[in-house]
């Protein structure tokens, strides 16, 4: 057994501390709703959570969640492929970056919500519209993380490959890509949450045939369902939590070497 300075937490400890953190936050929220702001618009967490639990057992509701998840993940997938490819191209070919920089910098800050009417027009109100918006929004973090990752590749690592006559494409493939991979993964993780947010927001703001967002929209036009609206929102958060956990697990498997380097401490 090797021991280190500082605390490396066991998985069990991590879980326990995570639960403590969540419990504390819940109690706080409950207290605010009960004694802080007395308002019908802010139902107590306990009530919302009870609703959430019920919802999670409701197949109709789960179908809506499924629609949201499908749209978000499809968009994320497209964005991941496109973002990585573009990031690698921009990061390794100087003139491509120079040529695209202004266009990219103009496009990037344009909020996807502002594009909703445009997207409705171009793609209608169905899944394509959501996927298009999600792809657009999720593209940037992945693209820029890839770009930064490419720039952070140890120069000597690239030079080693070049000195051994490794062909250019292989250097990209076997040096730049593996060393950038953790950055790309982090980008995908950032984008995963954005993808969910944009999907639900689009459903909420544009109206859609199905999805968590349109479910929330339907609930809120009923008048007295604030707790249900929040329950839906919480489900959105839970989705994000699970997707993030999943991506983390994948990263954990893929980047053992990175942990070893970090563990050298």
């Amino acid at each position, binding site marked *: 057994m090797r021991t280190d300075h500082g605390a490396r*937490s066991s998985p069990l400890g991590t879980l326990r501390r995570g639960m403590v*953190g969540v419990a504390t936050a819940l109690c706080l929220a409950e207290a605010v709703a009960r004694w802080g702001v007395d308002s019908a*618009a802010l139902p107590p967490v306990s009530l919302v959570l009870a609703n959430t639990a019920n919802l999670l057992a409701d197949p109709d509701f789960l179908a809506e969640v499924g629609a949201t998840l499908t749209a978000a993940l499809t968009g994320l997938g497209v964005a991941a492929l496109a973002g990585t490819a573009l990031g690698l191209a921009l990061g390794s070919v100087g003139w491509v970056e120079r040529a695209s920089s202004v266009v990219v910098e103009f496009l990037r800050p344009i909020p996807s919500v502002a594009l909703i009417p445009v997207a409705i027009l171009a793609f209608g109100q169905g899944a394509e519209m959501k996927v298009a918006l999600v792809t657009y929004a999720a593209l940037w973090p992945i693209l820029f993380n890839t770009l930064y990752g490419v720039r952070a590749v140890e*120069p000597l690592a690239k030079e080693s490959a070049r000195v051994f006559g490794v062909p250019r494409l292989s250097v990209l493939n076997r040096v730049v890509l593996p060393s950038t991979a953790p950055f790309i993964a982090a980008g995908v993780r950032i984008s995963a949450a954005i993808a969910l947010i944009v999907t639900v927001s689009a459903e909420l703001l544009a109206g859609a045939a199905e999805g968590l967002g349109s479910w929330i929209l339907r609930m809120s036009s009923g008048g007295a369902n604030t707790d249900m609206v929040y329950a839906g929102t919480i489900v959105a958060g839970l989705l994000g939590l699970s997707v993030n956990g999943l991506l983390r697990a994948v990263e954990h498997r893929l980047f053992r070497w990175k942990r070893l380097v970090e563990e050298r401490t």
Partner: protein
Amino acid sequence: MKTLPEADPPPDGDRPAQTRAPDTGTGRSERAGRALGSFLLRWAVLAGLLLVWELVAQNARSPFFPPPSEFLARAGQLWLPSAEAWLTESMRRDVLPSLARMLSGLALATVTAVALGVAIALNRRVGDYVDPIIQFARALPPPALIPVFLVLFGREDLMRVLLIAFGSAWPVLINTVEGVRSIDPLKHETARVFGVPLRTRLARIVLPGASQKILAGVRTALALGLILMVISEMVAATSGIGFHIVQAQRGFQILDMWAGIVLLGVLGYLLNLALTLVEHRLLAWHRIANSSTPEPAGQ
């Protein structure tokens, strides 16, 4: 990118210019020429795309896709200083308040996220406690959160600033954690061996070491901040760029809507440019470290 900061060039040798590595003394005129070339290239691509758009839109004449010439003219009318007023009405009423909200929110987000991110990265226990909450919170869709923020913080600027901060803090937080964790452990160990106190280590190792990734996070946060600015101005607002765009959408004033979108692009571009300048200053060492590796020669 790889040119050194304004250093004087070495005496010009008789070697053909293009065979030199970029770091090894490029003539000033040549460097200027290249800078001009890349400047033209950057903007030419944008101009080209606009031109194509213009032609397509001229032909299609869809009410929702006006030609760029029209909405650019509208944008100029709305926001560019004119003979009558240096500050147009909409500039004063919409743009400046929006910018103020956005920048305060972003500043708040950056400071909080960097502090929290450093704490999480340096102490896994802290991370363990807050991680599930963070992952949960950052997946909450802001439009669904607006009601909560309205109840908790009222309908004035405070609520908007907080919503912007809440939504844009995540990339900074995540990047800070990653950036701090990716600092070579030997750098920390060196400091510990010399008994350097934590405070100094934070200021002199953790922040500089993670600065590149933090700035990358701020860049993403900037784009998110604009989104949230729009979202936060969709409800209970009486001014702002988001308000402008939403009202234009509702009233089918398509030119105004596109003009608003263009404005967001321009603002994002300018803010990004400002960030690049900051980065240029903060990361001078990084450029030097990278420029010791010249561009691929030949090949």
